[in-house]
């Protein structure tokens, strides 16, 4: 098996995540799909690290994880806040900037 298969898998998962971001309205699920995309990228980084015999890919994956954690914390807090004020977790409802 060629290690590129990992990359292909990562691309597929990434695309699935992107589609999820586009079709789902529940903000939490959208967020999960974003995480899915990030994880796909991490897989690619780890696979690249192995392919090239360097540790940098893993370092980047590590940082991605940390940043993703921070993002989740803030993002979920924002979702909570929006839900509190608008009684809805639908991202389509958050359209105050329209018009």
């Amino acid at each position, binding site marked *: 098996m060629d290690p590129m298969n990992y990359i292909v898998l990562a691309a597929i998962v990434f695309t699935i995540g*992107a589609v999820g971001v*586009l*079709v789902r309205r529940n903000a939490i699920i959208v967020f999960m799909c974003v995480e899915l995309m990030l994880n796909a990228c991490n897989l690619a980084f780890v696979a690249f690290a192995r392919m090239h015999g360097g540790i940098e890919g893993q370092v980047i994956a590590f940082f991605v994880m940390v940043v993703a954690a921070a993002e989740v914390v803030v993002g979920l807090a924002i979702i909570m806040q929006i839900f509190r004020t608008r009684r809805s977790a639908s*991202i*389509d409802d958050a*359209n105050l*900037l329209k*018009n």
Partner: protein
Amino acid sequence: MTSTLAAGGYAATTAADGGVLSYAWLMIALPLLGAAVLLLGGKRTNAWGHWLAIAAALSSFVWAVLSLGQLLGRAPEERSVTVHVYQWIKVGTFDIDLSLLIDPLSMTFALLITGVGSLIHIYSVGYMAHDENRRRFFAYLNLFVAAMLVLVLADNYAVLFLGWEGVGLASYLLIGFWQHKPAAAVAAKKAFLINRVGDIGLLVSIMLLFTTFGTVTFHPVFESVDGAGRGLMTAVGLLLLLGACGKSAQLPLQAWLLDAMEGPTPVSALIHAATMVTAGVYLIVRSGPIFEAAPTAQLVVTIVGAATLLAGAIIGCAKDDIKKALAGSTMSQIGYMTLAAGLGPIGYAAAIAHLVTHGFFKAGLFLGAGSVMHAMNDEVDMRRYGGLRTVMPVTFATFGVGYLAIIGVPFLSGWWTKEGIIQAAFDSGGLTGQILGWVTVLGAGLTAFYMSRIMFLTFFGTKRWAKDANPHESPAVMTVPMIILAIGSAALGAVLVVNYTLANFLAPVVGAPAHEFDLVHMLTSPYSLAALVLMIVGVAYAWVRYANDKVPVTAPKGNFITVAAREELYGNAINEGLFMRPGQQLTRATVAFDDHGVDGVVTGIARSVRAASENLRLTQTGFARSYALTMLFGAAVVVVTTLGVNLA
């Protein structure tokens, strides 16, 4: 073209060498400071503001007297002093200093302005006592005095124009002082607009002078007048005349003066009788060398003067409003001066002499009229007066002296100076001289008639008062200035004219008198006798018509001349038909073009932009997912492009 003037004082200006003259700018600064304090000080200065204004005007007068004293201490040919105040504008070769020119001519004016001005300031304390805006009134009066002094003391046309506009502004503010009266507001606007027409003439002439001579300072310009073309000088002269016509209410820009009587009476006395309206005469006399280089322009000046002389007199004969009748008289008298000024050096001194005495007796007459109005609850219709001589003896006496002076009773001020003009007109020679001379003689007769009409309607005959009228003599603060002016009206002419005192004083500027003073000739010349006869006829006719019990309270219909005169010889109708209506049409057309043409293009562009935006706006759905879709689309494009590039 021989210029007696260039050889005279103009070539020899000297700088002020310390002393009073070096501080001549104080004459302007003091009233200006007074105006600033009153206008900026607000209500705080209400209690003492008018006294401050009077102090400013009086101190300015004192300074003028001191300056005169120092000027008289110099040799006649050294009496032209330039006082440099500061550099005003300097752009390349365009270099204008704010300098003052102290010479006999400007000092004569400065004394008249500050002297009469101070008296009218004092009079106004009484006249405006009950006006809640008295402080503002005095501020404007001070502003006027300052601006008028800038005008006459200027050493170049640019500074003169500064003062010219300043007095225009003060005139506007004071005519419209009672803004709550629509008539006053409209009159102020009218005066301002008509003056603008004249100002354009003055402005263009200044520009012409600058482009021709590279300077607008009086002396250099006058010295180089001979080198310039006659056509150009004629143009400059005519444009200067246009400016003078606007400011001095000469035909064809006369229409504003009668309406200007809507202002408070002291304003009419100071601005629209004694000083500002004579600025045109000053301009023509000051610009003498230019006019001498342009005989055509000079001729036009005399024609304008003669026409205004008669028109003003005719209007004065028919008006029932005492102030408007006096305003017609003012027009007529300034017509005299303009005519004399147009005669050239032989007329300048006569014009200035008449200007000074006219300043006194006309101011006195206006103050008298103000006193009468003050007593009659601001009634201005002379048909509502009558028999006031017993009720208001001081006013009657002072008004009477002014009246006798203006109609030219021998040995009173008006006679001396008017005779000077009549004589100058006949002396100018030729057919023109004869015509002009007879016009002035006829004018003397008309003057006698309309002034007698005012006098008899007001002070003689039966009482035709309104029911609530309760006339009384005015307080001393008003009568004292009137008495002083009456003394001036009686005696000043003799002081100025006997032995050509004023003419000799002015000689460095306007040239020496043509011949020796000859009292016998003045009394016995046929023209003088003719003027005297006509004067008596005018008075007698007025006596028959107006000094009796049969004067109706409402004006009779009158013949067509009377009607025309009442309509101010249709000056307003002409203005309306010739300028206002076409102007309105033009404005409407412009507005229509602006609305449909210009705005059409602008709004059309705006509309199309807006329509485009409306369509573009639809892409902004407010759905984050739609935006994310475009991001994915972008990513797909990047992928496809990368792939395509790598395959290629």
